């Protein structure tokens, strides 16, 4: 069973999921950025509209208050005014202008007349009626008050910093002071300041009525950066925006504050102003008083909808992802499921169960194709193996028959050594080792009469069953033909005649036939195209028989064979063999060769005949490394002398 994490289904699902997540986040990020920018843009627009109306209303009220002392300055600058007139003027100004809390004309020292250091009549509202006071005195040297000194020094009207009026019930106030001048000796000389006081209660309502989202708000800064209006009463006229910036360690906020009190207008992002929340700040100047009105949009509330949407999109995305994952896994499993079945089936088939039924696949896709191909392969395998089984059985039958044939073949060769217990004149040993199950080599030996011993070796052309049958026929013919007083060339001629008759397959045999006169040691022989035998003289030379070979036997009718003669002395040996000996090959296809044979025979001289052949055979088997290409047949005969003159071979050799 494959681990799930390594399965195709999982890998497919993973690659799909990762790609889709990437695409999703790319789209999501882009969409978020654009939406945010849109919201920012619309917020800026919204802020502008929100503040524009408010600023205009504030300016309107401030201007209407400004007009009162400005008009009065105009009157006072025209020429000296009686005290009574002046008081009436001030009183009516306060009465006619409900925005005014109070109004006074404060003269510079000795400016109203030469006697009065202080001259400052002041009318102010006291509940529903008007009250009057003379300002100035040892405890109130108004010349050094901001409202007097600043317009004097600057030479132009000024709005004071807002302040809490401690006398009149702790109301936030602001004063507008206008300096006025008189011509003295032709010179424009400072004469005093007309000051109009105004409660800022109306401002509180106006600014706090600006509501933004849930917790957004508007605030107003004075020229010094003091909070004139702010939802947090603790800040009002007790804290500047710069103090807040210092407390927060926010340098950017300080810069924003500086821009605000310089009368600039901007839409900026701020990290925090209160409650540590980021937001947008839009500020715009209230020019006549040098104030700055700002609106704060809390970022999270501004983005609440989009944040909500984001959550929804993320949730949907996650659910979608999970669904996609599931669908891909299940679809991939539908594809790979049959594959797993096939893998199991194949394993089963491989283990030998050819009758195992392949899982059925109805699908028309590649997997279906594969499945059907597997099924047909299984069928082919099955029939092939069935055929193979049959063939193997037939082959086995033939092999067993061949084995029987081989046994028969070997059984027709004489296997008793030395051959005749009653023939001490010679010693003989022979071996035949077939290359294949049934060979075409043959040998035979038999006594023709008391003094004549016939021996023959042959090699049938071709191999296998036909060769062995031909060999059996040949052997029988030699035995039947070599009867008493028949010379060897006649035997070969007769056998040749018999074999070549009706020999349509043109099979033939090479044969060497010899007849030993056991009394004299004379050998008469005839060669039918066979390898030349080796004569091993006792204690002397080892050499091939010098005689040219005749035609092969059985190939052509009417062939004449020659007779050769030689004499063996007692102790001499006569070695016959087939070409399987000299043409044995090692792994490099190098022949054993005639020369090697002579050399080896020389080395083995003196050993008993049986040992010589066994040693040579072992040598040949080793030479060809068991990969024998042709039948190997060897026969070694030793003449031991006539019966009468017989000597002990061991003694004669010693």
């Amino acid at each position: 069973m494959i681990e799930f994490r390594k399965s195709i289904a999982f890998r497919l699902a993973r690659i799909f999921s990762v790609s889709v997540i990437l695409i999703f986040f790319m789209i999501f990020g882009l969409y978020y950025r654009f939406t945010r920018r849109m919201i920012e843009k619309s917020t800026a627009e919204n802020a502008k509209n929100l503040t524009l109306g408010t600023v205009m209303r504030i300016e309107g009220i401030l201007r209407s208050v400004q007009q009162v002392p400005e008009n009065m300055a105009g009157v006072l600058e025209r020429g000296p005014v009686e005290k009574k007139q002046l008081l009436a003027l001030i009183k009516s100004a306060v009465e006619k202008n409900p925005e005014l809390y109070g109004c006074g004309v404060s003269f510079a020292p000795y400016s109203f007349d030469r006697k009065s250091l202080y001259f400052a009549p002041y009318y102010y509202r006291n509940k529903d009626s008007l009250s009057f006071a003379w300002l100035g005195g040892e405890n109130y040297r108004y010349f050094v008050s901001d409202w007097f000194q600043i317009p004097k020094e600057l030479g132009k009207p000024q709005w004071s910093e807002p302040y809490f009026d401690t006398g009149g019930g702790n109301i936030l106030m602001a004063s507008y002071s206008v300096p006025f001048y008189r011509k003295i000796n032709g010179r424009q000389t400072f004469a005093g300041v007309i000051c109009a006081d105004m409660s800022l209660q109306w401002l509180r309502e106006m600014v706090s009525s600006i509501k933004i989202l849930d917790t957004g708000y508007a605030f107003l800064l004075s020229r010094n950066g003091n909070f004139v209006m702010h939802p947090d009463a603790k800040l009002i006229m007790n804290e500047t925006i710069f103090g807040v910036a210092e407390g927060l360690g926010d340098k950017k906020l300080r810069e924003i504050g500086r821009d605000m009190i310089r009368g600039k207008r901007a839409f900026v992002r701020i990290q925090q102003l209160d409650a540590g929340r980021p937001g947008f700040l839009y500020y715009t100047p209230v020019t006549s008083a040098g104030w700055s009105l700002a609106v704060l949009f809390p970022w999270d509330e501004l983005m609440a909808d989009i944040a909500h949407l984001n959550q929804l999109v993320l949730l949907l995305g996650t659910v979608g992802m999970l669904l996609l994952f599931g669908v891909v896994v299940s679809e991939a499993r539908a594809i790979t499921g049959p594959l797993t079945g096939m893998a199991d089936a194949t394993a089963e088939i491989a283990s030998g169960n050819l009758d195992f039924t392949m899982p059925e696949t109805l699908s028309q896709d590649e997997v279906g194709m594969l499945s059907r191909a597997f099924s047909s392969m299984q069928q082919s395998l099955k029939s092939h193996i069935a055929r193979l089984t049959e063939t193997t059985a037939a082959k086995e039958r033939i092999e067993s028959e061949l084995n029987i044939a081989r046994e028969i073949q070997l059984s027709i060769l004489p296997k008793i050594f030395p051959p005749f217990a009653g023939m001490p004149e010679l010693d003989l040993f022979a071996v035949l080792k077939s290359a294949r199950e049934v060979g075409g080599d043959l040998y035979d030996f038999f006594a023709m009469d008391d003094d004549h011993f016939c021996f023959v070796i042959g090699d049938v052309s071709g191999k296998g069953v036909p060769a062995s049958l031909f060999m059996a026929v040949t052997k029988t013919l030699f035995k039947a033909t070599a009867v008493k007083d028949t010379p060897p060339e006649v035997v070969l001629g007769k056998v040749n005649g018999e074999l070549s008759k009706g020999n349509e397959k043109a099979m033939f045999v090479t044969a060497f036939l010899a007849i030993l006169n056991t009394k004299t040691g004379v050998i008469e022989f005839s060669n039918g195209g066979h390898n030349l035998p080796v004569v091993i003289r006792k204690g002397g030379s080892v050499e091939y028989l010098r005689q040219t070979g005749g035609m092969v036997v059985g190939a052509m009718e009417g062939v004449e064979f020659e007779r050769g003669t030689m004499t063996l002395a007692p102790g001499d040996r006569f070695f016959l063999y087939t070409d399987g000996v000299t043409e044995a090959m090692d792994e490099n296809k190098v022949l054993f060769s005639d020369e090697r044979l002579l050399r080896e025979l020389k080395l083995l001289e003196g050993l008993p005949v049986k040992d010589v052949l066994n040693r040579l055979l072992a040598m040949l088997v080793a030479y060809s490394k068991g990969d024998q290409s042709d039948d190997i047949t060897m026969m070694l005969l030793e003449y031991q002398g006539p019966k009468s003159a017989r000597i002990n071979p061991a003694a004669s050799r010693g």
Partner: protein
Amino acid sequence: MFLLWCGCVGLLTAQAAAATRKLSFIPLWSPQAQFAGYYVALEKGFYRGQGIEVEILDGGPERPADVWLEKGKADIGTLWLSEAIKKRAQGVRLVNVAQILQRSALMLVAKKSSGIRTVADFDGKTVALWESFQLQPLALFKKYNLRVKVITQAHSINLFLRGGADAASAMFYNEYHTIINAGLNPEELTTFFFYDYGLNFPEDGLYMLEKNYNRDPAAAAAFVKATLDGWTYAFKHKNEAIEIVLRRMREAGIPANRMHQKWMLEKMQGLISPKGLATRVGELQRADYERVASELAKSGGWKSVDYGSFYRAVRSSD
């Protein structure tokens, strides 16, 4: 039970002994971090630890410390050294029992945009000066031979902020920060510390009427010791000290601004124990006294007593 009773009696007797040494203290302005050391000493029980019962009165424009001392409404109070010397010359027998500030915090602040970058640039400029504290600036202008238009500066700094004056007086621990917190950056300002111009008139010192001092010098010594401990504690635990000051301010109905008080406390540290201070904290140095006395003599013909009869180097026995 018996042990507990004994403990109670012991405590009562200790308090009874302390009750005999009651002191009232008046700072020269309403509560703020300029007086953090006193409030902390009271809050942390340092005065009681010294065996005195101290009441801190609220100072302010309506309760001038010099008048309160003179009239015996307070036993001990803070005054500027120059003001105390003048009072003494006017016949009020005040003695200095400790000089809290070692360096003058008085300074002149100018806008660079007014073209004031060095002392010489004051020539021809308008400078707002506090009426009572003109001694040092005038001496400075005289020293550099400058013609300056002096106008009176009230309590606020608005005249300077609005551009009605090219420069104004300020205390480093107070108005300077107010200016910064009205949106002017330090790099836009030129500052002149009188300390740097050989006019170090150290301000806040502790004063008593001589007769009051003579009646119980040990009580004065205890007050000084506890006060200095209070300052040490305040500088080590600034946040706690500021909390104490802010609470006191709220009780007095004064707008309390934490950052401003923090600034003030930090600056007080540099003024009370400046780096490289030659003497002990709280000591009135003869050179400082003589410098202020001689400037006063030069500018207004004020006659001063000798250092020894002005300053009583009180040290508590421990």
